[in-house]
Structure formats: C-alpha cells, structure tokens
C-alpha cells in the first residue's frame, strides 16, 4: 500500500541578508561563500531524493500577520503563495506553489489531534520562507517541489513552548505516515541560532552554545524540548528562541537520524547553521520485518 513518509529534515537560517546575497549573485564573495556553499549539498540531496512535498517551518515577520490578530501556529493550504513586500519592495521571485490536497488533510488531522492551528487560504511569504527556499532551489530550479508553510509565533509572547513545537513535529509525522498515497516529505526547520536583534544586547552570540545546540538537535532533541524560553534566550539571545522551529522539523523525524551535512558560519549578528538529517524510519517496525524475513 502506498503511503506518505518523512524522508528527512533540513535546517537552515532564514535571515534576509542571505537571500539577498544569494539572489544577487554574491554567493562566491569571501564574506558569503562559507555559508552559501553550505547549500550545495542540500540542493544535491533534494535532487537525489526527489521529495513530493516540502513542509517548511518558519515565522512571519509581521508581513502576513500583524499583532491585531496573531496566531500561535498557522499553516497554508493555498495553491500558490504571493511574495510579500516587507517594506523595501518585493523580492523578484515567482510565486511559490503549495499543496492544497495534503494541506487540508494536515489541517484536519492536526485539529483532530488537538493542535488547533489557524488555516490560511492566502499567505504571502516573507524572508522567513523565501531565504531558505531561494537557497535550496537555485534560480533554474524554482520551485520544483510544492511547499506547505507552517508559521510559528516566535515574535509576540506568549510563544508556544519548545515541547509543543517538538510535539507538533511528531503529530506531523503521524499524519504523513497515515496518508494513503505516495508522498515523500522533507521537513525544513528554519531560524538562526544565537542572535538578538533588539536592545543594547543587539548582536549577542555564543558559538559554544550554538555548537551544543547542533549536537543536541541531532542526538537529544527532547533535552532541547524541555528548555524554557528564558533558558534559550539566556544562552543564545532573545531572538534565538526561534530555534523552537527546528524542533518541529526534528520532532517529525525518527528518534535516531543520520546526519549527512552540518555547517556553521557566524559573519555578523546571527549564528547560521545548516544540517541534513536523513530519516531512519520506524526502527521497531524494521526490526519486526527483519525477524519475519529471518523466520
């Protein structure tokens, strides 16, 4: 029986400066090459694995949503997504295709599982999605995989807990696996590691914590899921709390993963990290199948 499966997870920063640098051809300059080169294995991995769908977990930066009405979690069922004008003109990018059929399934199943997510039929995308998407799909390959954006409130407290984000990822895994059609899904968790973008602490970084975070997201995500926002902000700066979006990605993967890529670069104000985690499937089911075969 065909069914959906999670094939892996990617981690990517989403700072607008990266998308601008990449899209304006500055990827080979000394300032950007250490980061932009880190997208090459990710592009190649996608081309090799040929996912049917990308679920990208990002936050809106007050472009699709404003604080008049601000959802904790939102997902888009739109067939395609406009490019937002964030205040300095739209990026010259084509509209991003969505996946309405699975989007509605995801919406229903998440609410059935008591994740009361807001459902969007129009969702202009800002740099939160467009920086990673730009770099994962080079200009000649835009956009060959449809995308379902999941938007998490990391701007306006109260924010969802780290554990809630991890559990959201686990729910997404269950829903993908229950889908009765072939659907190879790649998850993308977006966000910078240590950084703070306001107050006198603007520019705060901690590279040792960033390195520890990258170890933990791979090998012990539940430990990260137990951290409070206070702890995350103390270790990594106020805006590093957006690392909880990486936990949605990680929660959707198998307990153990195969890391095939990890890169880190801190040029100015944000610790930028990229990872590829390959899903190892349901190990218990795999063992069972193996023992059946042996018998």
């Amino acid at each position, binding site marked *: 029986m065909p069914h959906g499966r999670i094939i892996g997870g990617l981690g990517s920063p989403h700072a607008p*400066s990266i998308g601008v640098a990449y899209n304006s051809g500055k990827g080979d300059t000394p300032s950007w090459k250490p980061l932009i080169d880190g997208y090459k294995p990710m592009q190649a991995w996608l081309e090799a694995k040929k996912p049917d769908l990308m679920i990208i977990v990002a936050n809106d930066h007050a472009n699709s949503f404003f604080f008049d009405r601000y959802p904790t979690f939102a997902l888009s069922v739109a067939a395609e997504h406009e490019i937002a004008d964030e205040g300095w003109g739209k990026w010259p990018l084509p509209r991003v295709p969505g996946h309405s059929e699975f989007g509605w399934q995801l919406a229903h199943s998440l609410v059935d599982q008591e994740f009361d997510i807001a459902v969007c039929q129009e969702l202009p995308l800002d740099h939160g999605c467009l920086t990673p998407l730009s770099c994962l799909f080079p200009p000649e390959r835009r956009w060959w995989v449809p995308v379902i954006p999941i938007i998490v409130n990391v701007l306006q407290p109260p924010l969802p807990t780290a554990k809630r984000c991890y559990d959201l990822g686990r729910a997404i895994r269950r829903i993908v696996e229950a889908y009765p059609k072939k659907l190879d899904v790649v998850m993308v968790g977006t966000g910078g590691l240590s950084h703070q973008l306001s107050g*006198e602490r603007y520019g705060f970084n901690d590279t040792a914590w960033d390195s520890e975070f990258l170890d933990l997201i791979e090998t012990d995500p539940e430990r990260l899921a137990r951290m409070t926002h206070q702890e995350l902000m103390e270790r990594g700066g*106020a805006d590093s709390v957006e690392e909880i979006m990486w936990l949605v990605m990680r929660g959707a993967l198998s307990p153990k993963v195969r890391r095939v890529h990890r890169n880190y670069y801190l040029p100015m104000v944000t610790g930028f990290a990229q990872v590829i985690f390959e899903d190892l499937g349901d190990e218990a089911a795999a063992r069972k199948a193996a023992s059946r075969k042996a018998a």
Partner: protein
Amino acid sequence: MDPKKQAAPAGRPLWETEVEVLPIQSRQIDFERPLHGTYLTTGLRAQRGYRLSKFCMAFMSPETRDAFKADPERVMSEMALSDYEKTLIREQNFNAMVRYGVNAFMIFKLANAFGVNQNQTGAKMRLQSFEEFIATRNVKDAL
C-alpha cells in the same frame, strides 16, 4: 518587585505611561531575571507599543514610503501618533522604541524609510556608532 510600581497610573492611557517592567506569571519567562539590554514585548508593554507598531506596518506600502520620504510630519499626523511617539521617530530613537514595546521587525521597516539598514539600526539600539559596532563583528560587509 513592588506591584504598586508596576501598575499603570489610573486614568491614563497605556501608551502615555512610564511603565517599564510588566511582570506576568509565566512558566517560560522569568520576570525576576530580566536579561541585560533586552526588552521583551510582553503584555502591556506590547500593548503600549501597538499604535507605533501599526504605524511601522504602513511602510509595507510603497505609497506610504514615498509619502513619508516627502513629508514625514504629514504622515505622522495622519496616523494620529502621540507627541512622544513622534519624537521617537524624529530622533530615530530605536532603542527607546524597543523599550516602549515595538518589535524589532517593525522598527526595521521604519528605519528603512530613513535609509538606515538593519545593522545601522542595531548599532543605535546598542547606543554605539556604526563604526564601533562593526568593529565587534567577524565579517564587516556581509550586510
């Protein structure tokens, strides 16, 4: 913390108050351990900053950006900002805007209309010159 000091003075609208620390019972944020140089837009602070935040949102429209560049006073008056809010804008006092309750991503939209980029805005939030700030960075031109 003395709760009396935290309450907004009676009869005055939130955005006119001097309230700086607005503790809330939270399992996620420890209001007894504020981080140096960090002003979370929690609760009443966010509410106080709402009108100025909304003003910043208008800069998503090219028409507002052009109108502001041509005549900032007219745009500020049309949006019915308070005198204090207008002063913050005229002075490009981004640090005070953060303390007032405006999220950084709103401030970046407004700063852009002044031709001030994100890291120049950040330097002002740090109460430093751009040159002082950039000297603390690993790479100077990854803007």
